[in-house]
């Protein structure tokens, strides 16, 4: 390939790599990709951080990042995992939150660390329904089909829906 790509170009390419479990978000929007460093010989080191300790998608994401950049013609790609700072849904930008809602997943509220370990009342209210936008919703379970989602229910359109967990 001609010349070495800029960091911005590499990040733009990585914005094409979607999360395998939430395919409307890219790994950049999700905040999994923390940085990309391009060296003079074209070697790229991508720094990633896991969403959850046991997220089974992490290995798939790393392979997808490597494949994407190798297909773009980069000679060598290294994916490095860091744990600090710990991943938070607060990194997901507003534009990506809108995409989540349009896809049928309520976006996360702010990641609030509650003082009480077993609080009487949750600091975050329930999200509006991504289908009918009603505020009359309830949390059915903090756990859903993947580690990153909770299960909610809408009292107006009477549909279950998923919410991206705020952590």
């Amino acid at each position, binding site marked *: 390939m001609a010349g070495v790509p800029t960091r911005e170009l590499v990040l733009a390419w990585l914005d094409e790599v979607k999360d395998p479990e939430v395919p409307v978000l890219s790994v950049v929007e999700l905040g999994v990709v923390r940085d990309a460093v391009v060296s003079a010989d074209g070697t790229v080191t991508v720094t990633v951080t896991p969403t959850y*300790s046991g997220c089974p998608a992490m290995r798939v994401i790393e392979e997808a990042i490597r494949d994407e950049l190798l297909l773009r013609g980069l000679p060598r790609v290294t994916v490095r995992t860091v744990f600090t700072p710990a991943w938070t849904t607060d990194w997901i930008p507003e534009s990506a939150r809108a995409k989540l809602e349009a896809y049928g997943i309520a976006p996360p509220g702010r990641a609030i*660390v509650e003082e009480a370990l*077993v609080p009487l009342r949750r600091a975050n209210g329930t999200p509006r329904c991504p289908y009918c936008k009603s505020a009359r919703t309830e949390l059915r379970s903090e756990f859903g089909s993947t*580690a990153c989602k909770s299960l909610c229910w809408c009292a107006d359109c009477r549909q279950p829906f998923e919410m991206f967990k705020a*952590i």
Partner: protein
Amino acid sequence: MSTPHPALFEALLRLGDDRLVLGHRTSEWCGHAPILEEDIALANLALDLIGQANLLLEYAGAVEGAGRDQDALAYFREAIEFRNALMCELPKGDYAVTIARHFLHGVFSVLQWDALSSSTDATIAGIAAKALKESRYHVRHAGEWMIRLGDGTDESHRRAQDAVNLLWPFTGELFMPCSDDAELAAAGVTADVSSFEAKWRETIDDVMLRATLTVPEGAWMQRGGREGRHTEHLGHMLAEMQIVARSHPGAQW
């Protein structure tokens, strides 16, 4: 890490084995939980715990410096080489036992991760900061169920109290310092478990009160897991957990 460090290796096994063994026990509920939402919840809890164990045992292998990775440590050690607290290996019991164990161990975990998130060892601090977020929602889930079961029907109250009575003698071991840990704790690499026992008890008492449950006083505290002296249950659990890896060593899929 290039220099092998036996005390740190042991400390990481204690951290990792608690989560591996409790995570496996939790996974035994998959497809058997009383309601679908709880089946999903427990599968999620197991996934988090095994994920934490994966990170901790991977680091333990690197610290040991003997070429063992997390799979070698999980699947090719015998029961006497495991360093989990005895509480983690007890059979899953009924749903009350499962919830009470998650609650008692979960509060311990939150406090332990909180202390370790400022470890002078960057890898431990990073894993702890991530695991802390997960343990917080584990405790929220287990604590809410403790209250629901304890302050529920006569049947659910009886079962929840029986579960607490069964598990209580296994709580003391969580806070017993290990001799090889003193130096690491003093250096800020690990955290002295006895330093957060009072806070643990305060949280437990608060939820037990709301759950109308009683903490058994004066119980003889069991110990042995941290030194590899386990109950008969661990060997049976490992036989099931390790059989595939041992039947097909080195298999990739």
